[in-house]
């Protein structure tokens, strides 16, 4: 059981980073469907830099930058040039996948150095890691897992307590009103979209630096799309996003575990559950029409000051 929970947390991390990233973007009113592409860009760049420098810090930084770069292109097109968000996001995914394939073409399957891999070894937190059942999964993990947990709390505080976060929410809810009250709408959009992209990049790099850790073209395998779904599943709340990432992470490895235990249930059918669950959440939340479960009111509406 404990080993299963440890594996669940590890499986949830790419989803968590990407979901939080997309959440930042959507809170500012921009639906970025390029998560998969940004994750791939982060995954390949993080891996290559790790391979070249053996430095975990540089590898992680490079992954953050790669994701942010992808998001910045999206922001430039959708915010400054007012392009359609759905199409631009999809383009980013296609671009990211092509970019990753080209950049990673000669390092497929190359192993990372032991030194680099060891820097992502589990670090037990004294006392806490001794708690039965949840101690090991939550408090005996690698450094990026702790960083992910910190992100959940920081983003929660960001949207609840900080001026920048509150202004971002205002932009996402009603860009025209935010503009009228003196908020620089475009600046806030750029800021949140780019920061979100950085997290998506890290989510991808978690796969190539920690989980697998090797580069291959299909490494992200649709996790970016799950992250888009998770944001809705979580009704745009960071803590629910974390729980959702854990749940989806658990489902992604459940079928194999059950088979190992001799219970025959096709992994492919288990794999469907998260998507069906997301659809149900979307239906229920629109049906109940609860304000706090709805997307930011101005999500995916472009904002042109001149056309107010």
């Amino acid at each position, binding site marked *: 059981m404990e080993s299963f929970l440890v594996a669940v947390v590890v499986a949830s991390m790419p989803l968590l980073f990407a979901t939080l990233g997309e959440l930042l973007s959507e809170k500012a009113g921009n*639906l970025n*469907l390029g998560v998969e*592409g940004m994750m791939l860009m982060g995954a390949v760049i993080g891996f290559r830099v790790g391979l070249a420098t053996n430095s975990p810090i540089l590898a992680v930084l490079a992954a953050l930058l790669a994701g942010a770069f992808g998001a910045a*292109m999206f922001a*430039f*097109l959708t915010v*400054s*040039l*007012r*392009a*359609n968000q*759905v*199409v*631009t996001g*999809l*383009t*980013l*995914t*296609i*671009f*990211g*996948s*092509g*970019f*990753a*394939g*080209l950049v990673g*073409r000669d390092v497929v399957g190359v192993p990372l150095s032991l030194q680099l891999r060891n820097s992502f070894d589990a670090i037990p937190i004294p006392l806490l890691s001794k708690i039965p059942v949840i101690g090991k999964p939550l408090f005996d993990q690698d450094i990026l897992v702790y960083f992910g947990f910190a992100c959940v709390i920081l983003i929660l505080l960001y949207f609840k307590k900080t001026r920048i976060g509150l202004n971002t929410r205002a932009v996402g809810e009603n860009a025209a009103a935010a503009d009228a009250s003196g908020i620089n709408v475009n600046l806030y959009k750029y800021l949140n979209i780019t920061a979100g992209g950085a997290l998506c990049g890290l989510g991808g790099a978690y796969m190539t630096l920690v989980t697998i850790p090797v580069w291959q*073209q299909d490494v992200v395998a*649709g996790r970016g*799309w799950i992250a*888009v*779904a998770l944001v*809705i599943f979580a009704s745009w709340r960071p803590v629910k996003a974390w729980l959702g990432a854990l749940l989806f992470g658990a489902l992604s490895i459940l079928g194999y575990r059950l088979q190992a235990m001799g219970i025959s249930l*096709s992994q*492919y*059918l288990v*794999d*469907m559950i998260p*998507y*069906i669950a*997301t*659809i149900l959440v*979307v*239906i229920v939340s*629109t*049906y109940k029409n609860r304000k706090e479960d709805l*997307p930011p009111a101005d999500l*995916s509406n472009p904002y042109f000051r*001149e*056309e107010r």
Partner: protein
Amino acid sequence: MIKINKRASLPKRKEMMIQALAVLLSLVFAGLVILAMGYNPLEVYYRIVEGSVGTIIRIQQTINKAVPLIIVSMGILVAFKMKFWNIGGEGQIMMGAFGATLVALNLPESVPTPIMLLAMAVMATLCGAIWAFIPAFFKAKFGTNETIFTLMMNYIAIKFVTYMQFGPWKDPSFGGFPKVASFHDNAIMPSLFGLHIGWIIALFAVAGVYIFIHHTKRGYEISVVGESLDTARYAGMNIKAIIITAMLVSGGLCGLAGMIQASAIEKTLTYTISAGYGFTAIITAWLGRLSAPVVGVVCFLFAMLLQGSSFLQASMAIPASVADMIQGVILFFVLGSDFFLQYKVVLKDKKAVKEVA
């Protein structure tokens, strides 16, 4: 100071010039990336053209790739015209292929080919339409977000077909290798001029969608709903029915493309049968400005890019992902150029503003 003004209208010639410039710039930019990768961009571009239209066989392969892309793009176009973001093309293709396979595997070998193919096509269209109906129903009834819904339906379809391929439909004669049984000859589309007859269906799809959008009442209503929901409501249109018909057409066309892929290309069902056409079609539909004939042409160009880059992989050992990268760059530039079609950027002298004030 920079000021952005909305353009009243733009002469057709200037509009085309801006777009051509955008494509040209994107090729230059993509060329720089290819150069940075250590290849000669001109050679890469030449090989893409050579690999896609250089010989008769390559042209046939390009057309084979264009056929599903055109049909799916027509489906996507109808939904997008209504601003219904159907990104579930992949799943609708997949379910269409499933429907066709269901018929092909269960009708006896003695059924004549035309009847068999017709039954497969009807079933595929139906399955694709049902897969699109589900999100359309919830959109019409509760206003449920269709982007996410259709996206999730993709994954359910893919997992479902994977399950069928690795489970109930696994053909034991392949010795444990997870593969669905190949179709009998009567379930395989015949050829005409060395091509499977899918291209005729594609041409009909383009003409049909063009007529549907421009010359039928429902088609007109779809455009109105896309332009302005308020106008549609004010005119007393039945918005729910419009949403549902548009999505039935959209999903049906995607399903039909799935049948063609299963029958003519794969000759069986695989969980990779949609091959990204559902996503590429979104791009081609958009690039073609949701005009059926233009989208058809764009689809052919994209098919050239796809076919040409698989040739690149063989001849220059450049990964086929270069096609994705080039597609992405071209689209980024064209999306960006839209802005300059709609707006005029005016550089204003700060002093001049002050004087006026």
